[in-house]
């Protein structure tokens, strides 16, 4: 009980949400055009590594974020080209992309930084913490909402932006159309392949931000496989949020809280293994709450 009243728990919840939410928003865009993007995990990992590398190369944290976005954007284009251009099975390509990301990042970790496992440079600056002027002064809540990396705020703003884009703009409308009935959209001269490319690219960019938040926002280091399944958790968040950006935001809130709780609980007497497993158990439990209709239809189990 005392634990749940701890303000810092909620503060770190917001911080932990950001990567999941950013990746999940990428997942939403892909899902809306009919692409089940299993590669989120690898894209995020690429972003995390590129952010550290960018910071190392340019010595500027913002150029580092840009570099992360570019690198995972390029990775996502591989995914897009194989699934859209060459009609490869998107799940297989997604899995392969995750391999590529983990292979490339460990290879480059060795090649660029000459270390194994993880890289940490005490001299390297992470993302700044923004203190929001007025909000920060609100008693109680202020400490939770203020003092995060800009990417945390970006993640939440983007959720609203995406909601607006999908349901209010012409381009968003056409994206929805391309996902709902590709043949129909094509017969109207809507270039659905182009829309799909953009969607996958957008997910790459968002995963780049997610990765940057992981390696520069929360800690300033890169560890092999540091995404630790967050890309898959983001996939579940997409399903749980029914492909609605704001719904996904709520789902991410839940998973971010679990992530934060699992870290927070480590100070207690429980074996760390249990607290570490908590987010995955809760994610699995969350899957009981909804039906993945596309999955059911595909296996002939829709009533």
């Amino acid at each position, binding site marked *: 009980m005392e634990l749940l009243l701890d303000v810092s728990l909620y503060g770190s919840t917001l911080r932990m949400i950001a990567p999941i939410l950013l990746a999940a928003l990428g997942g939403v865009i892909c899902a809306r055009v009919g692409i089940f993007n299993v590669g989120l995990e690898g894209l995020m990992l690429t972003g995390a590594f590129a952010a550290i590398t960018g910071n190392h190369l340019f010595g500027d944290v913002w150029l580092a974020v840009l570099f992360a976005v570019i690198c995972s954007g390029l990775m996502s284009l591989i995914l897009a080209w194989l699934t859209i251009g060459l009609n490869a099975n998107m799940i297989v390509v997604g899995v*392969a992309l995750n391999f590529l990301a983990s292979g490339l990042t*460990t290879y480059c970790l060795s090649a660029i930084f000459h270390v194994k496992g993880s890289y940490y440079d005490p001299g390297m600056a992470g993302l700044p913490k923004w203190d929001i002027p007025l909000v920060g002064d609100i008693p109680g809540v202020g400490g939770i909402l203020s003092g995060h990396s800009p990417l945390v705020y970006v993640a939440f703003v983007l959720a609203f932006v995406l909601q607006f884009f999908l349901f209010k703009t012409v381009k968003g409308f056409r994206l929805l159309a391309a996902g709902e009935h590709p043949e129909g959209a094509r017969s109207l001269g809507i270039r659905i392949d182009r829309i799909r490319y953009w969607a996958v690219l957008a997910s790459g960019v968002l995963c780049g931000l997610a990765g940057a938040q992981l390696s520069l926002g929360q800690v300033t280091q890169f560890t092999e496989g540091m995404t630790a399944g967050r890309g898959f958790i983001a996939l579940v968040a997409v*399903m749980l949020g029914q492909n609605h950006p704001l719904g996904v935001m709520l789902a991410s809130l839940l998973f971010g809280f679990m992530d934060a709780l699992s870290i927070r609980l480590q100070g207690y007497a429980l074996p760390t293994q249990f607290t570490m497993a908590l987010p995955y158990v809760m994610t699995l439990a969350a899957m009981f709450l909804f039906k993945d209709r596309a999955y059911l239809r595909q296996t002939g189990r829709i009533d």
Partner: protein
Amino acid sequence: MRRLADSLRGLVHPLAALAAGLAAGAVAVIVVGGSVGETYAEMWKGAFGSFYYLTNTLARSTPIMLIGLGVALAFRAGFFNLGAEGQLLFGALAAAVAALYLPAPPALAMIAALVAGIIAGGAWSLLAGWLDVRFRLNLLVSTLLLNYIAIYVCSYFVSFPLKDTSGSAAINQTNMIDRAVWLPKLFKGMSVHAGFVLAAAAAVLLFLVLRHTVAGYHLRMHGSNPLFALYGGVRRGRLMAWTMLASGGFAGLAGAVEVLGTQYRYIDNALTAPGYAWSGIMAALLANSHPLGTAAAALLLAALQTGGMGVERNTEVPLEIASVIQAAIILFISARFTRALLKRRKARAADGTAA
């Protein structure tokens, strides 16, 4: 004659992907300033350069092959079982526990340990299948999440109740298994053990089952079009239960032979760090889930990995070059360039004439 031509044509694509993967690897080598020729020469030596290295490669391919076969089985049935890692760990842990604590004569204890591995891996896999059939959880996602849970649960067991407290406290591991229970080595002083024979036999067995049995036929049809199988009287739930059980069983067996043949105890992280599970999945993907092809692909991947170690020993290029090559091969394979292009042309033709 035609069948021969067909299977040769089937080889064109994997070979092209292999070449493309090696080309991608060459780029990676050049980027870090290494010599491509030297790197690949060292890689070859590291994998096949001597009888010792060859047997090393065979030993490494053993768990990859078994896992790959299990994954291939599930993929052929249309079930995206990506939970090999968790299944592997539970199999290994159960085998270690059985080998350590079962009061039985050594030979029997060894067999019991292998069986325990199969059952534990199968049960963990079956859990995901049951969640799918009973509660309609997406198998792909649930198996991925169960991996993480398995990693932590097994880590807990070996860190607390089963921990070897006699030796150094730095490593979380079980006690050493009695030497009499170990899997016999195939050659004295070499690392390859009887598990490799088991894996090779399993590949042939799986090939025959898929091709020549009624169950294999139903499984293949379900993988190709689940609705067609349903319509023809295949029961999805039952098929899924048996397939997942067997698929996880293979992974569990992989864990068991690794414990009984190579490590002789369960060591935390010792099975996840080399990425056996994911290599197995890659092998299945590489061979398009054909059992014999999966076995061959497992050998290839193992050779790349042991070769990568050779590269790291003797050059400036890090051993992860192997991971880069592997991933590139998989990407090229998944694209099925030639087939994708052919198919598109055909699909267009079919559209027109069906109208």
